[in-house]
C-alpha cells in the first residue's frame, strides 16, 4: 500500500480564496445592520475616503489572516499509530488526532464557491463526543478522492477484523449480487415535491425569516408606530363579514406564499439529487447551495422513517428519512432525507438497509385516555380564555365568538380522533414499527437488534388504570409510545430477548 498523505500537507493553494471569502463573510455578517444604518442614515457626515480606506485595511488584515490560516492548516496520516492528524490555528494552535477505529465516515461537500474554484470539502466524522467532525475545506478532486479512499480502506479493515462472520448472514446472497439501481430527481420531480410538501413549514420559515429581520432592526424602529397603525386599520372594519373576508384573504395569501417558499427550499436542498446503490452502500449526492455526498452503510442507519401525505401518495412520492449513529446528542442534525422516491424504490432502499424482510406482527394502540387528554388540552384552556375575555371586554360579539369556537371544537375533535385512530405500534419478529400522522403519515421503522435499551415509565396516576409509557432508546435518538396497557410488558420481554440473543453488529 502506498503511503499517501504520510507527510504533512496543505490544502489546495486556491483554497486561500475560500478562507478569505468565508472570513470576510463572517466578519461582515455581524456588521451588516450597522452598514445599512449608515447608508440609510446621515451618510453626508461621513467622509467616503475614510470608509474606503478602512475597508481596504480591514480586507488586507483578513487576507493576511487567511494566508496564515492556510499555511498553518496541515494534515497527515500517521501510519504507525493508525491515526489521522490535523494541525491548525492562527492565534491559537489546535492539534486534532482521530484514530482510524473512531472514524465513522468520510464524505464530500461543495458550496457554490467551492464549485467555482474547483475544490472539495472532505468531512471526517468520528464517534465519541469528545472529538467533533473535522472538515478540510479545499482539496482538489484528485486528492479528495484519494484521501477518502485511504481512510475508507482503514475503516473497512477495522470493521472486517471485528465482524468476520457478517458474510455468513442469510442475507449475504443478496449482498453479493445486488440489484443495482439509481434514483434521480428531475426538475419536474422537484416541482411536484415543492407543491405537495408541507406548506405550514414554508409558512414557518417565513415567520422565522421575518422575526430575525425584526430582531435585527427592532431598535431602529420606533416601537408603537406599527401597533398604532394596525389598531387603526382594524378599527376601520365595521362588520363581521369584512373581518371574515380579510381573514380568508390572509389565509389564502399565506398558503400561496407557503407553497412558493416550499418550492424554493426544496430546490435548494435537493437539487440534482442522485441515489445509487453500490455493493455495500447507498451513495447519496444532492444540494444546490452545498452539494453533499454521503455513503449510507446499513449498519450506520439506526432508525428509518417512511413519510408521505395523501397527495404525494397519489403521485407515488415517498420520502425516506434515515437517522444515523451520531456522536453528539443533537440527533436531529444527523437525519438524512431522501425525498421523491417511488414506492418501489423506497421499498428497495429499505430492504437494502435492513437485514430482514418485514413481516406482519402484533399491533398496539394507546389507551383512549390519550385522545381525551389531547381534547382536554386543546379545548379547555381556549374556552377558559374566551370566557375570561368576554368578561373583560364588553364589546365582543359573543354569538360570533361562540360560533367560531363551536366550529373549532368540532373540527378539533374530528381531527384528533382521526389522529388517534392512525396511531399504532407494530411489533413483528425483527422490527418495531410506529405509525403516526393524519395528513403527513410517518412510519418509524427500527430493527429490534438496533435497540440500545428500553424504558418503561408509569406515573402514579396511571397505576390504577394499569397503563405505561414506553421509550425505545437507539443510538440515534429515542422513540416513544404512550399509554399502552401493562400487558405490553411481555413485548418488552420479547424485545429484550431479541436484543440479547442478537449477534448482528448494531453499528
Amino acid at each position: 500500500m502506498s503511503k499517501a498523505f504520510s507527510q504533512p500537507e496543505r490544502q489546495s493553494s486556491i483554497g486561500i480564496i475560500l478562507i478569505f471569502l468565508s472570513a470576510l463573510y463572517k466578519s461582515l455578517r455581524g456588521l451588516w445592520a450597522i452598514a445599512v444604518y449608515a447608508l440609510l442614515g446621515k451618510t453626508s457626515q461621513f467622509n467616503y475616503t475614510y470608509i474606503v480606506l478602512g475597508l481596504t485595511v480591514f480586507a488586507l488584515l483578513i487576507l493576511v489572516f487567511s494566508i496564515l490560516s492556510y499555511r498553518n492548516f496541515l494534515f497527515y496520516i500517521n501510519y504507525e499509530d493508525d491515526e489521522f492528524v490535523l494541525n491548525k490555528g492562527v492565534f491559537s494552535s489546535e492539534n486534532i488526532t482521530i484514530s482510524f477505529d473512531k472514524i465513522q465516515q468520510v464524505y464530500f461537500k461543495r458550496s457554490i464557491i467551492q464549485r467555482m474554484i474547483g475544490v472539495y470539502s472532505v468531512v471526517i466524522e468520528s464517534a465519541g463526543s469528545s472529538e467533533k467532525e473535522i472538515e478540510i475545506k479545499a482539496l482538489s478532486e484528485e486528492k479528495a478522492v484519494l484521501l477518502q479512499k485511504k481512510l475508507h480502506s482503514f475503516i473497512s479493515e477495522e470493521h472486517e477484523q471485528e465482524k468476520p462472520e457478517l458474510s455468513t448472514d442469510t442475507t449475504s446472497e443478496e449482498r453479493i449480487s445486488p440489484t443495482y439501481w439509481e434514483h434521480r430527481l428531475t426538475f419536474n420531480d422537484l416541482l411536484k415535491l415543492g407543491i405537495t410538501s408541507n406548506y405550514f413549514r414554508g409558512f414557518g420559515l417565513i415567520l422565522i425569516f421575518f422575526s430575525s429581520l425584526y430582531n435585527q432592526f427592532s431598535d431602529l424602529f420606533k416601537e408603537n408606530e406599527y401597533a398604532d397603525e394596525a389598531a387603526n386599520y382594524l378599527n376601520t372594519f365595521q362588520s363581521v363579514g369584512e373581518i371574515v373576508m380579510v381573514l380568508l384573504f390572509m389565509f389564502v395569501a399565506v398558503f400561496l406564499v407557503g407553497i412558493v417558499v416550499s418550492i424554493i427550499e426544496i430546490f435548494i436542498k435537493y437539487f440534482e439529487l442522485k441515489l445509487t446503490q453500490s455493493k455495500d452502500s447507498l451513495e447519496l449526492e444532492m444540494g444546490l447551495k452545498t452539494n453533499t455526498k454521503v455513503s449510507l452503510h446499513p449498519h450506520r442507519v439506526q432508525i428509518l422513517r417512511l413519510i408521505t401525505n395523501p397527495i404525494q401518495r397519489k403521485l407515488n412520492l415517498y420520502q425516506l428519512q434515515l437517522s444515523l449513529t451520531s456522536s453528539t446528542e443533537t440527533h436531529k442534525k444527523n437525519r438524512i432525507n431522501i425525498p421523491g422516491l417511488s414506492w418501489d424504490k423506497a421499498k428497495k432502499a429499505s430492504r437494502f438497509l435492513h437485514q430482514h424482510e418485514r413481516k406482519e406482527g402484533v399491533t398496539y394502540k394507546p389507551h383512549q385516555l390519550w385522545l381525551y387528554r389531547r381534547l382536554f388540552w386543546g379545548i379547555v384552556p381556549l374556552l377558559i380564555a374566551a370566557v375570561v375575555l368576554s368578561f373583560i371586554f364588553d364589546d365582543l360579539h359573543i354569538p360570533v365568538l361562540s360560533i367560531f369556537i363551536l366550529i373549532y371544537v368540532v373540527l378539533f375533535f374530528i381531527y384528533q380522533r382521526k389522529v388517534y385512530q392512525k396511531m399504532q405500534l407494530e411489533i413483528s419478529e425483527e422490527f418495531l414499527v410506529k405509525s403516526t400522522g393524519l395528513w403527513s403519515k410517518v412510519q418509524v421503522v427500527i430493527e429490534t437488534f438496533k435497540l440500545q435499551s428500553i424504558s418503561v415509565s408509569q406515573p402514579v396516576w396511571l397505576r390504577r388504570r394499569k397503563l405505561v409509557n414506553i421509550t425505545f432508546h437507539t443510538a440515534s435518538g429515542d422513540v416513544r409510545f404512550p399509554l399502552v396497557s401493562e400487558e405490553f410488558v411481555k413485548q418488552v420481554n420479547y424485545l429484550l430477548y431479541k436484543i440479547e440473543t442478537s449477534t448482528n453488529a448494531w453499528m
Partner: protein
Amino acid sequence: MATIEPHTNFTNNAISSQELPDYKLEALEKVSKRLLKKILTGLIVFLTLILIVAGVLYLKEWVKLNYIFVGVLSAIGLLLLLMFIYHFFAQKNYGYVVREKDILFQKGVLVIKTTIIPFNRVQHVSTTQSLFDKYFKLKNVKVFTAGGQGSDIKIPGLTPQKALQIKEWIAHKIVEEKIDE
C-alpha cells in the same frame, strides 16, 4: 448474591412469549439505607451553612430582621423540607436487578421509570464516589449505552462491595460478548 446468579437460560428455539423471563416479576434489590442518612446529612449541612450566613448577616447588622429576611429564610427551610420529602420517597423507590443478560433499574417519585439495558449494548461501566459517599461508605454504578442520556442508568447508594461486584459482572459480560463475536 441471589440476584447475580443466572436467571433463566436462553435458548434459540422459538419460544412463546409466555416462557420468556418477565422483568416485572423480579424482586427488586433495594439500595443501602445509608443513602437516606447521606441525603439527610447533606441537607442539614446545607441548612447549617444558610443559618450561619443568616446569623452573620444579622449580627453584623447588614440586614434587619424584617419580613423579607424571615420570609426568605422560611422559604429556604420549606424548600429543604420538600427536598427531603422528595428524596425520602426517591431513595425508597430506587431498585435494581442484575440478571444474566441485562441490568434493570427503577427510580422515580411521581413517575416510576424502569430502564433495562442488555449487557451486549453496554458501552462502558464505571463507579463513582463523592466526598459524602466516601464518608457514608457508598458508591454509585453508572452504565452507559450508545443511546444517549435517557438510556443510561446511575444506581446510587450501593455498598462499595456491591458496586464493585456489579461493575465486575457487567465488565466480564461485555468481554464475553466480544469473544463470542
